[in-house]
């Protein structure tokens, strides 16, 4: 039950009390102000109750050493909130830029142990119980030996849920940029901007650029690295792996970005007319049937899908 103490206080009184607190935060009250403040406080029990609440607020704020608060809270909450939404899969940020469109497969990838075609996503359980998922257009070699478990990412993007190996062989993902050693983890790697983008969701990783000292990555972090350079540590983006359950999630995503993302999962050419590229789109879309997604677009946005053939599609104004 709510007590009288918890009952709401009239907004006008809260506002008056806030004004006094604001003045106090600005410095000592002068004699005249102090006199008026005391008068105000004594004028009504509700005034006093409102003031007590603000004193409670004051003690909350001083309940943390200010250098700690400073260190912890300094990071902009907007950014934190956005990251939280990403983690929820409410925003899609990855973008298609990391993936090169292959008009033809280089022989190394054609010969790879495991390869996913455009629009195809694969999941495999490896001999040690690790679960490996490949996003559209990816290729890996799987090189397990008595001394190590090595997965070579030749192209595209992988997600790895590492299993517990009875013989404690190290689990290593190798890319052109270097090696990533898993220490009991769930993480994804994709090739981007001449390096590897690593998103770590559980456990720990060691990133070993080919020509730079190794660094540790903690759960919830992501980091880009190349053979010689390391990017900044950033929060991991769980939405980046929505592809693993065959979905594409958009929340107020510009249509152009959405189409670029969708085209990763569809053979042929899929383009977006700049005239409609900034239309915002929200929804969860199945990657398994991109034709259906395109049809659905026409129902939710003022757009028309022009198909020259199934392999040459443009999304333009209705």
């Amino acid at each position, binding site marked *: 039950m709510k007590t009288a103490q918890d009952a709401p206080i009239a907004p006008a009184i809260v506002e008056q009390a806030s004004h006094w607190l604001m003045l106090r935060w*600005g410095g000592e009250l002068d004699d005249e102000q102090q006199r008026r403040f005391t008068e105000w406080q004594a004028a009504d029990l509700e005034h006093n109750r409102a003031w007590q*609440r603000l004193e*409670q607020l004051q003690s909350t704020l001083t309940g*943390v050493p200010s250098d*700690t608060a400073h260190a912890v809270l300094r990071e902009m909450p907007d950014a934190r909130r956005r990251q*939280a939404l990403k983690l929820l899969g409410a925003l899609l940020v990855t973008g298609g830029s990391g993936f090169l469109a292959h008009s033809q497969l280089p022989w190394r990838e054609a010969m790879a142990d495991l390869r996913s075609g455009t629009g195809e996503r694969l999941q495999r359980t490896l001999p040690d119980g690790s679960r490996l998922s490949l996003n559209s257009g990816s290729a890996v070699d799987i090189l397990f030996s008595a001394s190590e478990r090595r997965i070579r990412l030749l192209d595209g993007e992988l997600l790895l849920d590492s299993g517990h190996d009875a013989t404690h062989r190290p689990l290593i993902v190798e890319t052109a940029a270097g090696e990533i050693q898993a220490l009991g983890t769930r993480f994804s790697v994709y090739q981007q901007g001449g390096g590897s983008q690593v998103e770590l969701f559980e456990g720990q990783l060691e990133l070993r650029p080919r020509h730079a000292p190794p660094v540790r990555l903690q759960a919830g972090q992501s980091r880009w690295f190349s053979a010689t350079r390391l990017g900044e540590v950033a929060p991991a983006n769980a939405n980046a792996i929505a592809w*693993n359950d065959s979905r594409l999630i958009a929340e107020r995503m510009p249509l152009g970005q959405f189409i670029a993302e969708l085209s990763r999962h569809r053979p042929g050419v899929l383009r977006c007319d700049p005239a409609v590229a900034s239309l915002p789109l929200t929804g969860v879309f199945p990657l398994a049937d991109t034709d259906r997604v395109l049809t659905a677009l026409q129902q939710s946005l003022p757009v028309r899908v022009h198909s020259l053939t199934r392999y040459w599609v443009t999304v333009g104004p209705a």
Partner: protein
Amino acid sequence: MSSVLPPSSLHDDVHRLYNNHHGWLQGWLRRRLGDRERAADIAQDTFLRLLVTRRMPQHGEGRRFLAQIARNLIIDQWRRQRIEQAYLESLAALPEPETPSLETRAMVIETLMQIDAMLDGMPAKVREAFLLSQFEGLTYPQIAERLEVSVSSVQKYMLRAIAACYQVLYAE
């Protein structure tokens, strides 16, 4: 979208919602989080939250309402994790004897969560002014100079900051 109910019909309603939507909610969470156990935990917490807050969705709004609660729970968990991590990192910089007890840590984290929620309700400039005033000890004229605004603007920012704080501590 919701209404507060007396406890008696509340339990029936939660029960009905549970029967109708628990499976769906758990599946929805599992797809979002990719983690079966966490999905089950958050689905449970979502219904617990319904019981605690005594707020119920209107007819036909059940799933949307549950999803919203679950979403907030996940954001809270995530924020707590981030704050804990940042806090522990800031502690790591301290010499050994100054490390606070586990109990103190828990309390500090709780308080940081509250302050973080307050900051979340503030527009960027207001937040900046508030942080400078409360955690860097700057005066209003100093803040005004730093933000390139007038002192009276800083005062307005501070009023908005106080309102945001009040909202977190005493909403409803």
